[in-house]
């Protein structure tokens, strides 16, 4: 099956069977709810699937996850930058970005621009790595320049 972004049906978020059971797992981390405004922004812009995945990454990925045991837990600084970005970013109409956890403990957003070219930004501990498929541009921006990056990714 070749990946066809244009025609893939987006399933509603479905909780993994293990997560649906009462949590007797010692590695589950309980977080208090974030600021309501932040939670609402994540839910509004990333949908229930994205919102669920964000909490899944925060709650169930201990250090050493991953195929070689090299995975790092989600960086608090990366997560904070991610929340700030989601609150201010404007995604193309009808586009709901995907969210991923990277092995280095970063959190990544991926979507397409209005012409279907991929746009990605990975929030890491010390800054954000980005990719613009339309121009094949990739780079790294520290968080002091995040506002400029928001604008660059939207245009």
């Amino acid at each position, binding site marked *: *099956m070749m990946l066809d*972004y244009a025609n893939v049906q*987006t399933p509603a978020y479905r909780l993994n069977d293990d997560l649906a059971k009462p949590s007797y797992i010692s590695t589950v981390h309980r977080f208090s709810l974030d600021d309501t405004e932040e939670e609402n922004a994540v839910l509004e812009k990333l949908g229930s699937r994205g919102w669920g995945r964000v909490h899944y990454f925060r709650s169930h990925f201990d250090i050493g*996850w991953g195929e*070689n045991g090299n995975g790092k837990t989600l960086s608090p600084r990366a997560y904070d930058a991610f929340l700030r970005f989601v609150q201010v970013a404007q995604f193309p109409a009808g586009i709901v970005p995907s969210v991923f*956890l990277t092995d280095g403990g970063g959190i990544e957003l991926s979507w397409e621009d209005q012409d279907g070219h991929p746009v990605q930004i990975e929030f890491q501990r010390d800054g954000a790595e980005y*990719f613009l498929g339309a121009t094949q541009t990739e780079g790294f921006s520290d968080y002091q320049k995040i506002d400029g990056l928001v604008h660059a990714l939207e245009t």
Partner: protein
Amino acid sequence: MLVAPEENIVRAVCSDKWDGQRLSPSLFTGERTSVSRLSMIPLIDHWDMFRKYVQKPPERTLERIAEINVGVLQEAGLVHSKTELTVEASPLDWNRAHAEIPQKITRGLANAILSKLKLHESPGSS
């Protein structure tokens, strides 16, 4: 030992890298990317092997297996950024077909590779 361009290789895609709609390029970014050779273990057997040794529920569950021809991978590297990608056999105790792509793959190159992948669903899945 270098894996020949004629061979096809696969990589496990778990829930941290696939959300049902999109694939994360971080599946391939970085150095020493692990892959597995279909010439040594058929695709059908990779499912059980990856479920046993790669996935770790509830953290990460095996969602797809991504396949690419080594020659196509190498061409992608040359066309995108003149990067000479190699695949080197590196058998493991649990996977005799294990191999690695030792070179650093950038995000841009990873995106180019993603466009060449063939994604397999688990046999019998709806």
